[in-house]
């Protein structure tokens, strides 16, 4: 039965050559060495990686690849290999021929001869420099981003510039990992950059150096140059770069290797610098520089913000000064002004108050407002004070009693105001005694006038211009004071001897200019007022004369004169003028008070007419007071119709409530704070221009929003960087999976044919051939194990590990696994027992993964036990709970107990963590397998179970695996 023609590959030499070819095609350096560390084989990847050719390396010690400080590692590795252990994924540094340092991951496995003796080691070294570099770069960028976020927070939170700078330097050192950070302020006089904030400088480095901004050598470092040229300056090698020579030794001593400096601006002009220092050369690349430059930009922005804040404070200071000024003004005013709270405690008063009442300030401070009133005034005043606190304002006239008991009539007005959140009354009192007298006089004369008017009849004189005819009517005679009309008529021609006439301003009038004489001459006049006095007494009257001459058709003419006694009217007018003058004076006083207050003040009557406005209001309106008084507000300000102001005024007028609001008035492009108080006449409005405050608030708010946006943007950038890193990781896992597949294919031939030959199927072998082929098969199987491990890890890392659920017999699995390790146990003289409780039978789960876990644990148990026994027991667990959030289910517990070396208590927590043992465990002996247990733990978790260990040093270990009878479906 002829088969296909066998290729000539049965020759072991050809097989070895083929294996060599496979080894040479690997990307990883594959090296074999003997137990003395002499290199036996050296593939092409090793040549490429380390720069030594195979001819240079084979037969020489591998130690020349190892940096001096790591020589101890090789001793440990060789010691472990001699014990038959595998060293997996050990990350370290190695030297290339040209002296570079490579970061490599090393996996070393012992090579056994046909008899199972360890004769050397195979070593796979992978260059992980690029991956490590990327890892470090991502780490560095993450720290930078974290630092920048903190900088932005500091900008938002810091109240002062110095606080902000201090925080920023601290954040750059503590979050972003810089060795030192400082901020320098430019001192133009000294041409220096003086540190105003600093962090990370424990040794007074900055105090001992001076950084200049001009072109001398001490000004040509990164910081000086960055300031002078107004752009970032990077020095990535402080030790060798000439710009750093003035400070080189000190920098070197402090571990400063690279530095970057950035200009900070204030209001668009260079202000100072931000400088950071890293402990490794060539730290600053494009992305780092861009991020830091942004941080410096943010600081400039914050500086401008502080500048605005300072201007706002100055504006506030100005307002305070104005307030002080108005306080001084109030004190100098003639009326009494006072300020007290709801309990009647006086808080403030002007100097005049003390002068008028005769009390000292100390006395007033303990007095009550009603102490100044007596009798019925006291009750009225109390009622009006109550009105002020309930309705907002009131006024009253009352007698104001001084300390000496003198009572003076006063007119008081009070307005409620809020001081430190409490209602208070601000009041003004004016002395009205003069006005009172004027009023009394007026009333009297008006009464008198009323009586006279009642009896008044118009006086009439008729005369013939040419002849003797002359008639005075009774009223006219009575006006002249004749009670006896007959006597009057009798003496009517000699009036010039009884009376004198004067003009109203007192000029005597000659008889030729008297009214009747003028009318006779033909003058016409209307309502001419003249004083008439008697020569023989102090009788005097004022008459209003009207006169004319009327000519009849027959040529005759008659002169007519009418007269009215206007004495009372003239006097009343004088009185009224005087009263009006007093009122005006009083008004002027109030006006002055209100004008001196910085708030604008307006009073509107119920018909929306201006009753009053102060200077400040007129100034804001840009109008003259007298042009507005008495005018209708919405006629004068039609642009205000429909604005929120109108609605607020109308509501206050209608509902008689006090309203406060802040509002923007577009026609003036200004913000106003408004308080509207209902008053007796209508409403009063006190308002204030708060545009500057609003602008500051808006600027602050905008800055805040902008910063939030920046933080969000950076978070997004960071996330993208992480995504890229994860994508790279997925590519790596896929690459490993493909590679492991490609490596399996040739192994199929190697393992298959060595097996056939060892079975003798291809013909008999001599002892030497059998031994050598055994070594080939051993190495090939080991390589396969390596590949399988890599594949498992890459699957777990890539999240591609799937768990199958099918029924299987746990007892059979335990027997099978025990069967695999039994030869090794027997060889070491260990007793191996398997005890399964009778009720244990079928599990539904992943048989292969379950066996993988058990085999791994059993292998370890046998490996780490030199005498005694290894026992496996399986028992049911009624309530298995793998984690707190799942409900308990029935399961089994498999215990694998050995009498081996045990594990130190401090190492127990790290036992199941991946790579931990490999990374740090070289110095220890027999302390677990590293990757294997990490795989076991993840597998048992995926199967819905747990894994745990109890151990006592030198007494042995017990590993316990629990598994549910039914593997739960995977949770997403």
């Amino acid at each position: 039965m002829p088969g296909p023609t066998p290729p000539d590959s049965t020759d072991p030499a050809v097989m070895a050559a083929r294996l060599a070819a496979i080894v040479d095609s690997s990307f990883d350096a594959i090296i074999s060495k003997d137990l003395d560390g002499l290199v036996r084989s050296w593939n092409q990847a090793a040549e490429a990686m380390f720069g030594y050719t195979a001819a240079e390396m084979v037969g020489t010690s591998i130690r020349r690849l190892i940096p001096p400080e790591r020589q101890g590692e090789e001793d440990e590795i060789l010691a472990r290999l001699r014990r038959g252990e595998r060293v997996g994924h050990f990350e370290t540094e190695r030297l290339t021929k040209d002296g570079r340092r490579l970061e490599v991951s090393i996996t070393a496995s012992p090579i056994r001869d046909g008899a199972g003796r360890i004769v050397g080691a195979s070593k796979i070294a992978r260059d992980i420099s690029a991956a490590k570099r990327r890892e470090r770069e991502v780490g560095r960028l993450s720290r930078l981003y974290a630092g920048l976020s903190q900088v932005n927070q500091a900008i938002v939170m810091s109240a002062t510039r110095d606080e902000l700078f201090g925080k920023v330097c601290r954040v750059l050192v503590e979050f972003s990992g810089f060795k030192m950070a400082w901020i320098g302020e430019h001192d133009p006089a000294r041409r220096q950059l003086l540190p105003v904030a600093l962090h990370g400088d424990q040794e007074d480095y900055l105090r001992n150096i001076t950084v200049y901004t001009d072109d001398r050598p001490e000004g040509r470092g990164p910081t000086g140059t960055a300031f002078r040229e107004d752009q970032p300056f990077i020095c990535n090698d402080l030790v060798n770069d000439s710009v750093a020579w003035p400070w080189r030794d000190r920098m070197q001593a402090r571990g400063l290797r690279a530095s970057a400096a950035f200009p900070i601006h204030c209001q668009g002009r260079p202000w100072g610098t931000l400088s950071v220092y890293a402990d490794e050369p060539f730290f600053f690349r494009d992305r780092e520089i861009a991020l830091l430059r942004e941080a410096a930009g943010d600081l400039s922005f914050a500086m401008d913000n502080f500048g605005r804040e300072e201007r706002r404070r100055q504006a506030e200071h100005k307002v305070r000064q104005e307030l002080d000024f108005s306080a001084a003004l109030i004190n100098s005013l003639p009326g009494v002004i006072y300020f007290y709270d709801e309990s009647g405690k006086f808080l403030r008063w002007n100097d005049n108050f003390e002068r008028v009442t005769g009390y000292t300030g100390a006395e007033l401070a303990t007095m009550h407002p009603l102490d100044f009133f007596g009798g019925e005034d006291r009750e009225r005043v109390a009622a009006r004070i109550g009105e002020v606190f309930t309705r907002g304002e009131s006024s009253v006239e009352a007698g104001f009693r001084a300390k000496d008991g003198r009572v003076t009539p006063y007119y008081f007005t009070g307005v409620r105001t809020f001081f430190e959140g409490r209602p208070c009354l601000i009041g003004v009192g004016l002395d009205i005694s003069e006005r009172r007298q004027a009023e009394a006089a007026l009333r009297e004369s008006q009464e008198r006038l009323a009586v006279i008017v009642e009896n008044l009849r118009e006086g009439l004189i008729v005369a013939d211009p040419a002849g003797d005819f002359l008639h005075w009517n009774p009223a006219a005679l009575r006006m002249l004071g004749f009670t006896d009309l007959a006597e009057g008529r009798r003496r009517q021609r000699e009036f010039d001897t009884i009376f004198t006439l004067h003009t109203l301003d007192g000029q005597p009038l000659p008889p030729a200019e008297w009214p009747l004489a003028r009318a006779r001459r033909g003058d016409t006049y209307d309502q001419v007022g003249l004083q008439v006095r008697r020569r023989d007494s102090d009788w005097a009257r004022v008459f209003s004369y009207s006169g004319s001459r009327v000519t009849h058709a027959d040529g005759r003419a008659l002169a007519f004169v009418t007269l009215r006694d206007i004495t009372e009217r003239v006097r009343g007018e004088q009185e009224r003028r005087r009263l009006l003058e007093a009122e005006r004076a009083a008004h002027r006083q109030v006006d002055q008070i209100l004008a001196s207050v910085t708030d604008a003040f307006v009073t509107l009557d119920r018909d929306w007419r201006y009753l009053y406005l102060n200077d400040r209001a007129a100034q804001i309106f840009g109008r003259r007071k007298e042009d507005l008084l008495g005018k209708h507000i919405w006629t004068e300000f039609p642009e205000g119709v429909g604005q929120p102001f109108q609605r607020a005024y109308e509501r206050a007028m209608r509902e008689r409530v006090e309203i406060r609001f802040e509002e923007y008035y577009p026609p003036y492009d200004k913000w106003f704070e408004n308080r509207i108080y209902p008053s007796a006449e209508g409403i009063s409005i006190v308002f204030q221009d708060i545009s500057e405050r609003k602008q500051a608030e808006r600027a602050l708010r905008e800055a805040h929003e902008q910063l939030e946006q920046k933080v969000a943007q950076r978070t997004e950038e960071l996330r993208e960087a992480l995504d890229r890193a994860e994508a790279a990781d997925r590519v790596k896992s896929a690459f490993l999976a493909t590679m492991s597949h490609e490596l399996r294919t040739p192994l199929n031939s190697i393992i298959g044919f060595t097996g056939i030959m060892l079975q003798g199927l291809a013909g008999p072998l001599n002892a030497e051939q059998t031994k050598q082929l055994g070594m080939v098969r051993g190495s090939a199987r080991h390589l396969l194990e390596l590949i399988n491990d890599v594949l498992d890890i890459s699957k777990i890392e890539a999240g591609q590990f799937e768990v199958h659920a099918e029924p299987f017999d746990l007892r059979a699995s335990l027997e099978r696994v025990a069967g695999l390790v039994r030869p090794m146990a027997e060889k070491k003289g260990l007793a191996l027992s398997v005890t399964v409780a009778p009720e244990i039978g079928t599990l539904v789960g992943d048989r292969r993964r379950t066996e993988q876990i058990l085999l791994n644990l059993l292998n370890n148990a046998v490996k780490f036990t030199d005498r005694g026994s290894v026992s496996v027991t399986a028992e049911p667990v009624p309530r298995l709970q793998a984690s707190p959030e799942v409900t308990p289910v029935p399961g089994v517990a498999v215990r694998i107990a050995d009498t081996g070396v045990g594990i130190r208590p401090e190492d127990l927590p790290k036992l199941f963590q991946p790579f931990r043992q490999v990374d740090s465990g070289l110095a220890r002996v027999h302390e677990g397998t590293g990757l294997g247990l990490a795989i076991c733990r993840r597998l048992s978790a995926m199967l819905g179970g747990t894994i745990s260990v109890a151990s006592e040093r030198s007494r042995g270990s017990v590993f316990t695996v629990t598994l549910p009878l039914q593997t739960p479906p995977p949770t997403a």
Partner: protein
Amino acid sequence: MSRHVLLIEDNAQNRYLATFLLEHHGYSVTFAEDGPRGIALAQAGAPDLILLDIQLPGMDGHAVARALRGIPALQATPIIAVTSYAMVGDREKAMAAGCTGYLEKPINPDTFIADIERFAPPAR
């Protein structure tokens, strides 16, 4: 009478290895280097057992298995996938395509025949 195995495998070394083992254990072996030729041989020769590589040039093993199962005369013929694919779900994919069993490469020469006979017991 010796059992007849159809081996569909493109790799000459693997083909030689399997053929060697099978013939030593009394099987007769015919082989095809790709799927279409394998399907033609299966229709013509009515093999007792088909060993099918999954990673084949052109038409892959899954497609070949589905095609074979579409031929009425071959519906009961055991098809064993032999593959060095070892990624998640490979086994399920092979079974879904109609394979009876699944062996992972590298094959173990000590157990290869026993494994085959587990999936395709020899006739009495």
